[in-house]
């Protein structure tokens, strides 16, 4: 920390990869800047006007080979930047399909609310273990925020009305800044906190430190009762609404013939605005519209509950399984 570095600390392997690309750009950019500065400086000195009466020099109208060279040359270098940058972006922005540790983050003016599948909740603090692929599911209760951890070299906007994902694999234990990077009103610059990266054993101990109101599945199940969902979405037989057993993570055929994937966004939409995409064979206007009735955190709990109704093997992500494993503690 003592030595000044242009690179902030690195909490993941990907951070080092971004720094490598950045270094490449710095070298190319530095070389180009030096070239232009040197050429301007050299020409300005070498060809300076010595007396106001100096005759005008001979005109040089251009050179096609030079024009081609300084069009094609930079283009080829830029292709390298484009290819490298795109590859790394896809890698850093595409979460793995399996074995992720899912954590649910809700942004609201002006705090980050974090829920763990095991039921712990925090504000402006995020605890993650070294060596696991962590997937954050980002939601916003109000305006656009942006979840940013410089030590991971990653940010992602948190857009109200949708879920965004943010994934990384922590490597280095330590405490790292969390910032909100998208301007969100009065307290924007206070909407930050800390990510604590822990060794796996420390993390287990931390998780064991109590979870208050039960796991997210349990909380979701409670809401499922409370809002009366259970009266129609009966799970053991066909009710007035489709059973939610083995639905999550699988394609669903709609009444207009389309097929959609039952992912987080679909479940969210079907709770808030049930008539948008009705399952084939079921009626419109049976389920009440929950828009404005359930907060983002409650929605996430319901989604985790719905996820838990699909056997882990069939589910692309496994929060329910990991929750079930840890809940006895």
């Amino acid at each position, binding site marked *: 920390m003592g030595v000044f570095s242009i690179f902030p600390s690195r909490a993941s392997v990907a951070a080092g990869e971004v720094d490598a690309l950045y270094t490449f750009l710095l070298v190319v950019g530095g070389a180009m800047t030096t070239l*232009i500065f040197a050429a301007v400086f050299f020409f300005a000195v070498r060809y300076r006007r010595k007396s106001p009466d100096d005759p005008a020099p001979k005109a040089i109208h251009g050179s096609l080979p030079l024009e081609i060279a300084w069009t094609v040359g930079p*283009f080829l270098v830029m292709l390298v*930047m*484009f290819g490298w940058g795109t590859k790394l972006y896809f890698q850093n922005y595409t979460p793995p399909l399996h074995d992720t540790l899912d954590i649910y983050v809700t942004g609201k003016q002006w705090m980050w609310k974090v829920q763990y599948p095991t039921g712990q909740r925090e504000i402006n603090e995020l605890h993650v273990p070294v060596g696991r692929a962590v997937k954050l599911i980002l939601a916003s209760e109000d305006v656009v925020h942006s979840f940013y951890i410089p030590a991971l*070299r990653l940010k992602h906007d948190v857009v109200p009305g949708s879920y965004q994902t943010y994934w990384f694999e922590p490597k280095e234990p330590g405490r790292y800044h969390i910032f909100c990077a998208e301007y969100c009103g009065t307290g924007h610059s206070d909407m930050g906190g800390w990510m604590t990266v822990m060794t796996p054993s420390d993390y287990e101990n931390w998780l064991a430190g109590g979870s208050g109101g039960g796991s997210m599945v349990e909380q979701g199940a409670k809401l499922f009762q409370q809002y009366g969902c259970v009266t129609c979405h009966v799970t053991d037989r066909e009710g007035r609404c489709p059973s939610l057993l083995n639905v999550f993570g699988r394609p669903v055929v709609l009444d207009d013939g389309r097929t959609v994937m039952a992912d987080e966004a679909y479940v969210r939409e079907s709770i808030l605005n049930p008539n948008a995409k009705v399952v084939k064979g079921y009626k419109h206007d049976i389920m009440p519209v929950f828009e404005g009735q359930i907060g983002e955190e409650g929605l996430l709990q319901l989604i985790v509950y719905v996820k838990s109704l699909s056997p882990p093997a069939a589910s692309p992500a496994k929060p329910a399984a990991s929750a079930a494993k840890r809940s006895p503690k």
Partner: protein
Amino acid sequence: MSTTLPFVPAETRTNYLNADYGWKSWLFATDHKRIALLYLFSITAFFFVGGAFAVAMRINLLTPDGIFTHDTYNKLFTMHGIIMVFFFLVPSIPATLGNFLVPMMIGARDLAFPRINLLSWYIYIAGGILTLTAVFQGGVDTGWTFYAPFSSSYSNTHVILAAMGIFVSGFSSILTGLNFIVTIHTMRAPGMTWNRLPLFIWGHYATSLIQVLGTPVIAITMVLLGLERVLHAGIFDPTVGGDPILFQHLFWFYSHPAVYIMILPGMAVISEIVTCFSRKAIFGYNFVAYSSIAIAVFSFIVWGHHLFVSGQSMYASMVFSFFSFLVAIPSAVKVFNWTATMYKGSVSYDTPMLYAFGFMGLFTMGGLTGLFLATMAIDVHVTDTYFVIAHFHYVMVGGMVMAYMGGIHFWFPKISGRLYPEGWAKFAALLVFAGFNLTFFPQFILGYQGMPRRYAHYPPEFQVLNVMSTAGASILALGYLIPMIYLAWAWRYGPKSPQNPWNAKGLEWEQSPTPPPTFNFEHQPVVTEPAYNYSGEEQEVTLG
């Protein structure tokens, strides 16, 4: 050029400044040169208002805990952005130097629609008054980007008033662009073929295309924002069925091309200065001219690079990233050609050329850091941090404002008929260069370290670089104040300028008296040679 003017003592000659007196002769002027001056004084006023907001911001950032409240700081950066972008940068060169010079450079006596030209100034002032009213009513706190749903449903400041100001002033921009396009197409003097046009004209032609095609989109966006705010129409706010990302697409569909509205006229000025003070024809005329058009075209297909982290489809991001690299190439081609123009030239270090040197260096750095932002994996880290702030200030202040200052100094004798004190001018140019770099270079480092933009408070480890930046800003402010003083002085007391103090080529210098008469030329100018024929090549003297 062959035409020589009969000698008339300057004192007795009627020019556009002394042709008429009284406030009516200015407020109802249809002379493009007088309208250019109306614009010059109004945008200078806006520049200093916007600058004052910047000074207040830099003072706040001296310490991690700031001195202003969060709300005050949020309003400061919002008003700084809105005023500088919409009321200084967009009109700056086109409405002042462009207005003054486009007809003179092509040998016309005015723009095609002189009264529409005056109308556009009134519209600009109306928009400015609306926006300033928003300021005096207590300000706006949405950022100049007005992102929904914050602006549409959450902010309790004067969003609609500011949005109306931008909506209204947009029409001024459209009318100016339209006027330039028609003028350049229809009013060129005999012999002024497209290939003989000064590059200043090419740059303004490209700018006008963007103004006419792009500005209506921001107008629509501002109207939709107003509808959403007043009627909750459900366009951008997801709680009533809208899409916040739609706002970002609409906003940047104008606002990315708009940055080329701001920089193309700067490039146009640099082409004139570099040739004059190297006493040499431009290297690669066609490449410099057509690269302006290429920039104008590409500028419309890169807006999505502002949305790499917004949840936009990754494949869409990939396409936008690719085009963002492509748009850098014509800009690079220009820089290479200006540099090559100096090769084997006769280079003098007059004030406009010092600004041009500054432009070439700083615009290069601004452009190259743009490549960092086009590289998606880097953008994900540095977007919405001080890296972006530094990048676009290198382009807009290091590039555009340098070119503007260079242009003002270059044509000041033409406009005022006076010479300014060269020593003070050189001193101020060096101050601007030094102050600028000290202000904005540390911000690149801050950005990569992870300091987000629009932060009223910040973690203490960022303080050293912020203090450096504030120190630089105070030097920069001085560098802008000094020219204000000596130019105002010179306008009244400076020595009288000869007709062509720089021995520059171009109709405005060679065939028009200084300061010009109301109709610019005493005889119909005829063009018999290509632009920048400093070497006086005989073989090219043919009527076009």
